[in-house]
Each structure stands twice: as C-alpha cells, then as structure tokens.
C-alpha cells in the first residue's frame, strides 16, 4: 500500500501554502516548469523537468533531475527522504515546496485547513523598524557619514577615470 503524498507550494516570504496537490495510488510524481509534469510550477528559476517523487517501498523520496538541484536545510542535495512536513527548495532561487507523506484523510481538507507548521517562523513589526531606522537616519552623524561616503566614492571614480586616461 503506497501512502498518499501531499505537496504544498509555499509563499516563500510567509510560508503559507499557495497551492496544494495530493496524489493517491501513485509511486512517482514529476515536477517542473513544463506543462507535462504532474506538478507544474510557473517559476522562472525552476527547470522544465526539475525533480520527481519516488516511493521506494518504504518511504517517499524527492530526487533531483536538474542541474539546479534541490536545496534542503541550506544544503544542495541530490535527493531528500520525505518525513512529515519536509520543506525543500527547487534550485538556489526557485520556489519552496512542502511534502507530507502522511496526508490528510479527506481530499479537500488540505487546501482549506489551517496548518500552523507553515506559518512564518519569525515575525517582524515593520512599522517599529521604520521608526527606529528614521531615528538613526535623521541624526546628524548619519548624514555626515553618507556625505563622506559619497565624496569618497566620487574621488575613487575620479581616480579610476584618470588611471584609464593614462
């Protein structure tokens, strides 16, 4: 009996699932940019035929087909065993996918259920950040520094220009 596999396409910034696929009674699933894949992702950084899922008799494995490889926990890997909630990235700049071997029982639950594990890990209060940034940016020292950098850059460019003239 092959366990069903569920694949979520994640919004990389927030970790919310944008789209979900579920496969029953299959022992392999292909993914990539090309429309003949089982999972089609319209991401320019994903290869036409990027990777496939294969059930090895014991568990599902994600195997790379692309030179862009798979990124798992910050490492480039040729293949990843799927446990509950494995998150991988297709290529160094591609999309994030989350894989679940133990899928939801009802077909339509995956897309509407609230899954806390895909919530963003860290939270940023942007308003507070902007307030703190402006405190620094408006201080006289910051303005002086910016001006000094600008002058140094101009000097450097001038020097380079003169060097190329000679």
């Amino acid at each position, binding site marked *: 009996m092959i366990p069903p596999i569920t694949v979520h396409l994640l919004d990389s910034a927030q970790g919310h699932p944008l789209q979900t696929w579920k496969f029953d009674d299959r022992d392999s699933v292909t993914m990539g940019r090309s429309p003949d894949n089982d999972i089609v992702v319209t991401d320019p950084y994903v290869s036409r035929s990027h990777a496939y899922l294969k059930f090895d008799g014991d568990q599902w494995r994600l195997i790379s087909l692309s030179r862009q490889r798979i990124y798992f*926990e910050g490492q480039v890997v040729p293949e990843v065993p799927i446990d509950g909630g494995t998150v991988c990235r297709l290529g160094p700049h591609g999309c994030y996918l989350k894989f679940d071997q133990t899928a939801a029982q009802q077909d339509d639950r995956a897309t509407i259920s609230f899954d806390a594990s895909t919530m963003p890990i860290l939270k940023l209060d942007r308003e507070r950040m902007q307030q703190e940034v402006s405190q620094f940016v408006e201080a006289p020292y910051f303005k002086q520094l910016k001006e000094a950098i600008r002058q140094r850059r101009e000097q450097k460019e001038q020097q380079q220009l003169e060097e190329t003239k000679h």
Partner: protein
Amino acid sequence: MAKIIAVHSFRGGTGKSNITANLASLVALAGHRVGIIDTDIQSPGIHVIFGFNQDNLKYALNDYLWGNCKIEDAAYDVTRAAIPEPNGDRPRLFLIPSSVKTGEIARVLCDGYDVGLLNDGIQSVSRALSLDYLFIDTHPGVNEETLLSIAICDRFMLIMRPDNQDFQGTAVTVELAHRLEVQEILLIVNKVPQGMEAGMLQGQIESTYKAEVVGMLPLNAEMASLASSALFSVRYGDHPITQTLKGIARRIMT
C-alpha cells in the same frame, strides 16, 4: 588594499567573536594576511580565543585612540593559533585587541573617543601590516562606531539567532546598511535549534531582508563548550560546522 569585513550583531551572545575568529583564521589559512580588530571597546572578548589576558597585552586599540602608540604597535601576530608552524609572510593572522582593563573601558564609556580616529587607524594598520583582509569585530547594537564600520566595509556580515528579538533588531541594521549602500550584506544564522525548518527560515530571512544567508549554524554543544577558549575550526577540522564555516570563508574571498 585590504578588503574590510565588518562583523556585527544586534545583541550580544550570538557567537559573533567566535565566528569572526574562526572565519579570519580560515581566510588566513587560504594563504592571506588577515587582521582582526576588536572595536567592541565596551565589552571586548575576542582576545580570549587567542589566549590573551590583562597581563600579556602591552598595548591595545585604546592606547592608539588615546594617542599613546601607533596602531600597529597594538597588533599581535596570532598566526600560531591557527597554524602550528607558520613560515613566510603568508599566511599571517594579526589581532588588534581592545583593552581588558576596567579603567580603560570606563574611560571610553565616560569620555568617548573620536570615531574618525578609528577610521584612520583601520586604514593605516591595513597598510602597515600589508593586510589582504581585515575583520572588524564590532560592538553589538547600533552606535556611531557601528555605522562607521558599515560605511567603510566592503562586506557587512550580520550574525543573528533565529528568534523574534534578533529578527526585529537585525532588520533595523540591515535597513541602515542598505541606506549606506553597503556593497554586500551577508547573513549568518547561528544557534539554529534542531528540528527548526532551516530551509524555510532561510527563505523568510532572505526575502524579508533582501540579503543573502551565507550560512546556518546549528546550536552545538561542542562549540558552546569550547566557547571562547580556542578556535573551533582548528580543534574540530572535519566537523560539519567547520565545513559550513569554510564555505562562508570561501564566500568572503570571492
């Protein structure tokens, strides 16, 4: 011209000095002349990793800032901490420590110092020691000295832990670095607990900060126990953490 790498963190305890010492050693081991300057005058620490204490430091950065010596007089050759028997003029590793004396630290806190002088010192020590790379171990938080380090560096390296306080505070520094038009901002996430989804964490940090995460280091007992007594990458040459650090060192040298 030495490439300047400023290493910073929003809060203390991120492993900044430890990572700085290891990265500087690994860059030196690749065949370079490397300096480390401890500008964390208020809470110096990196000297401990290289076996210095109050009794065996003649001059420190403070002496240069008070006009008591030339900055190169406060530079110590610490190559042997990374390489048992160095020969030739490369690789070389130098440390310019901050004073450990409480009176000196108090004087900085009371009187302050001329940040411009620090800039001059960084430039002249790079020339005097013919450095290829200079690492600045900065004081946590944002002050004039941090802003100067951001402004003059070629690469700005930020070390953070994966918690909300660091994420919020680091965001401010990253934004300031963007506004100072730093050429390159590199992020290191340290002390990542086991079980945390590193890939997703990396994605969230990179997309929020618009900067590259060059390494994620796990919360590690060996590193913590060795803490600041020796160089981890020397003691544990084959450890996965050392491999990650080597990758970051290569990234610094590109």
